[in-house]
């Protein structure tokens, strides 16, 4: 997030898109809901009629996969009515003319034809967003999990810059991170192209620093493979071994059929986890690890706040800490990695990571600190881009709408979108061990609109077979007011009816995120 969670309550207008906030980030959604109690404006632009729409001034319903079209539409109106923040555009940004030219064709009428959003609604949101003293945009996987996900995010940044809502309290473009430490995993260089703090592996200076810090030579300079590419290479046979830590791709990956075959073709699969997950069951070696309640360390939350994790209980049996297992492995492979404690690891992190340099465990003992925090005297940075952007001036990207990779047709007439429910988390390996959560959310369901259900003469509770060009699952139908005609929602938590048997592994070319949010399916009674 460019801004903080607390900051949301101080916005004059909040635009939520592609985030089912009350179920995926419940406590954060309270900040949004409290803002509405104080009379702040809330607009939701989302294909599903999610719970948060009940608190909103207005809910706009675009067809799945048409985000760039409505964002360009908003900018079209704002520029046409002269509501853009001219001073901000002049001082802080470049390439405005290209954007202006591109959005000229996105008239409200054209946008309505593409997205289904009513002209009047789009105009209302455009005016309110531009005129608000500070407007915040919150988004989540509903924006990123598309073949055009990267462009969707850039388009939201365009919109925010156009109105000068970046770099100030109550504003910002705020991605809500799904899993607890996604932010930290990225910050720590758990990515194929960067070391910690996003220092590129291709940069000679960065590699030099690391070679010195780690006393090694010959660190590889070509970016590596992303998860989805690893699965692809395994399938082709050029990736021979995979070491998986705390992930369950056999439920979370798109197009599971394909992933299963890929894993079977590996010469060697190691899984390090706390449970015998679907993925662990396929492994050649399974290593038992600690869970969060047994560890000392840090997580970094979605607002870039580095916070302490503390050991509360002893781990079961012979389980070991993740880092210790890896250090033991390194030693056996001829490279000494030894630390007395995870605090020592954090000291090394601070030494090689500019944005974490000023953070120590002592400093975050009570309250976490927002990175960047360059020195021990620095208080951290709650709001990013207050005086300039990372690259200096903010760059407008002129981006055209591209339709999703797979659209409904005669054979597969429904659009499927996937996501989470309140009571479960990711592949359910943790939440499904709490009986009460299973009582409240016992099984997979296929959420469908009343009119679609009526057409098929089916009702809540009916078992249906759902199939796409890639796979098939069966689950119970659930008629819901959250669904809109033509679009079906299935949560992906449940291994017995894994929604990802159906999804499309087609990737966004830059971020390499699969298109989970749109694929074509058909539904039949069984």
């Amino acid at each position, binding site marked *: 997030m460019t801004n903080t969670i607390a900051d949301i309550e101080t916005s004059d207008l909040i635009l939520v898109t592609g985030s089912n906030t009350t179920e995926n980030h419940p406590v954060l959604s309270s900040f949004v809901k409290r803002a509405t109690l104080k009379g702040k404006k809330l607009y939701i632009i989302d294909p599903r009629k999610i719970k948060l729409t009940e608190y909103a001034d207005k809910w706009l319903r675009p067809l799945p996969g048409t985000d760039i079209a409505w964002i360009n539409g908003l900018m079209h109106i704002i520029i046409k009515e002269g509501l853009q923040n001219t001073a901000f555009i002049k001082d802080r940004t470049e390439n405005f003319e290209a954007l202006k030219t591109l959005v000229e064709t996105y008239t409200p009428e054209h946008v309505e034809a593409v997205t289904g959003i009513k002209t009047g609604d789009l105009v209302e949101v455009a005016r309110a967003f531009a005129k608000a003293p500070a407007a915040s945009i919150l988004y989540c996987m509903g924006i990123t999990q598309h073949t055009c996900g990267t462009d969707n995010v850039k388009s939201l940044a365009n919109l925010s810059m156009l109105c000068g809502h970046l770099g100030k309290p109550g504003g910002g473009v705020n991605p809500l991170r799904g899993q607890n430490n996604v*932010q930290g995993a990225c910050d720590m260089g758990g990515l194929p192209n960067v070391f910690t703090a996003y220092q590129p592996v291709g940069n000679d200076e960065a590699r030099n620093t690391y070679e010195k810090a780690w006393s090694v030579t010959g660190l590889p300079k070509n970016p590596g493979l992303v998860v989805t590419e690893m699965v692809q290479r395994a399938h082709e046979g050029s990736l021979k071994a995979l070491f998986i830590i705390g992930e369950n791709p056999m439920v979370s990956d798109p197009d599971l059929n394909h992933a299963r075959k890929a894993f079977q073709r590996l010469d060697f699969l190691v899984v390090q986890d706390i449970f015998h997950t679907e993925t662990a069951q396929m492994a050649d070696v399974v290593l038992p690890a600690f869970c969060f309640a047994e*560890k000392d360390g840090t997580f970094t939350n979605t607002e870039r706040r580095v916070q302490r994790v503390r050991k509360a209980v002893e781990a079961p049996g012979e389980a070991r800490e993740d*880092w210790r297992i890896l250090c033991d492995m390194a030693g056996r492979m001829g490279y000494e990695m030894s630390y007395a404690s995870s605090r020592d690891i954090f000291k090394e992190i601070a030494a090689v990571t500019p944005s974490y340099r000023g953070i120590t465990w002592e400093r975050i003992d009570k309250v976490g600190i927002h990175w960047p925090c360059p020195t021990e005297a620095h208080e951290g940075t709650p709001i990013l881009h207050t005086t300039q952007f990372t690259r200096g001036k903010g760059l407008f990207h002129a981006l055209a709408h591209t339709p999703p990779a797979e659209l409904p047709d005669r054979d597969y007439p429904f659009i499927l979108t996937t996501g989470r429910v309140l009571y479960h988390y990711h592949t359910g390996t943790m939440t499904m061990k709490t009986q009460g959560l299973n009582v409240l959310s016992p099984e997979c369901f296929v959420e469908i609109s009343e009119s679609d259900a009526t057409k098929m003469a089916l009702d809540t509770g009916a078992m249906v077979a759902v199939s796409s060009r890639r796979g098939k699952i069966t689950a119970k139908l659930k008629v819901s007011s959250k669904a809109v005609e033509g679009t079906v929602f299935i949560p992906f938590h449940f291994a017995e009816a894994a929604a990802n048997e159906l999804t499309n592994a087609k990737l966004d070319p830059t971020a390499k995120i699969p298109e989970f949010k749109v694929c074509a399916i058909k539904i039949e009674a069984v």
Partner: protein
Amino acid sequence: MDQDTIIINGNHLVFRSGETILETARRNHIDIPTLCHLKNAIPTHTCKICQVEVMGEPALVESCAAKAKQGMTILTDSPKVIEARKEVIKGLLASGYHNCAAREMDAKDWTSFQLTVLKNDGKEDLCPVWGDCELQDLAYRYQVKTRHTPSKECRYDTERANPFIIRDFSRCILCGRCVKACREIQVNNAIEFGYAGDDLKIIAKNDATLKDSDCVFCGECLQACPVGALVPDKAFRDHRFKDTRKIRTTCSFCGVGCQMDVFVQDNKIVKIDGADTDLPPNHASLCVKGRFGYEFVASPERLTRPLIKKDGKQVEASWEEALDLVAQKLSAIKSESGPDSIGVMTSARITNEDNYIAQKFTRAVLKTNNIDHCARL
């Protein structure tokens, strides 16, 4: 300096404009007890415990409602105040089924009070929050005895129709904190005051059970309830006298990173509460997963020993054997097919320290940049 000061118990204190007497006092660490006040919510003033004496005012004043005014002279513990508080506490104890021994207390000191209670603890229906109840604390502090006052019968049955929260209306003092917590803090709007007069009750819509209401089991109400009217449906109730440790940590589910207090007995998590109301990012709020979703930690299904696949079947192995095998296999594949034939998937669940070591291992030992995690998924 004289501009914005009030005098509480002889102390000259600066107040901020708009502040109530209670807020000024609390900010200056002067304790005024309350049962209905909830931080960050609009005061309900139903409980009348926070009354104080303001010089020149004929009647006692509710400190949670009265704004601090220049020159006010306030006594928070005068005999008049104490008498009034005792009356209120007596009324509350008699208003329901408060059988926690606070009512029959004749003991002179805390130890003998505890002993009396311990003796009674065999009784099935002893209040589950015994020892962690704000009303009981006040009853003890003000030495209120109500043994001879009959308690009011409760006409509503205890609700156990959901897996997480027990609602015991016989112990509800109708302070309204839960309603505030639900409507003003979490804004879930699931519960409200229902019926009137003697029938007053905290209800969900149409007086349905929580399970059939808009309730999302965030447990904000549970955490706010000063007494034993809302209690977690968990083993914690049976372990009041065991040693309990409290550890502050960060929730491991979503990216909000809520700060929480984990309560541990016998190496088992028995309860999780939101941390301090002043502490960002969550200011003591949690959601259903963070508060109740901890059973996985002590699950019998946890992996406890390394497994190695032998003849197509995974069998238990020692760490030595498992680590040797992995190191040898990875080394062999690295030298035969090159470093880039190996991939590492690290995790958005594990700590920064773990992730740092995972990428260091991948880059410095395996010598590949094939490391990623499932953030995109």
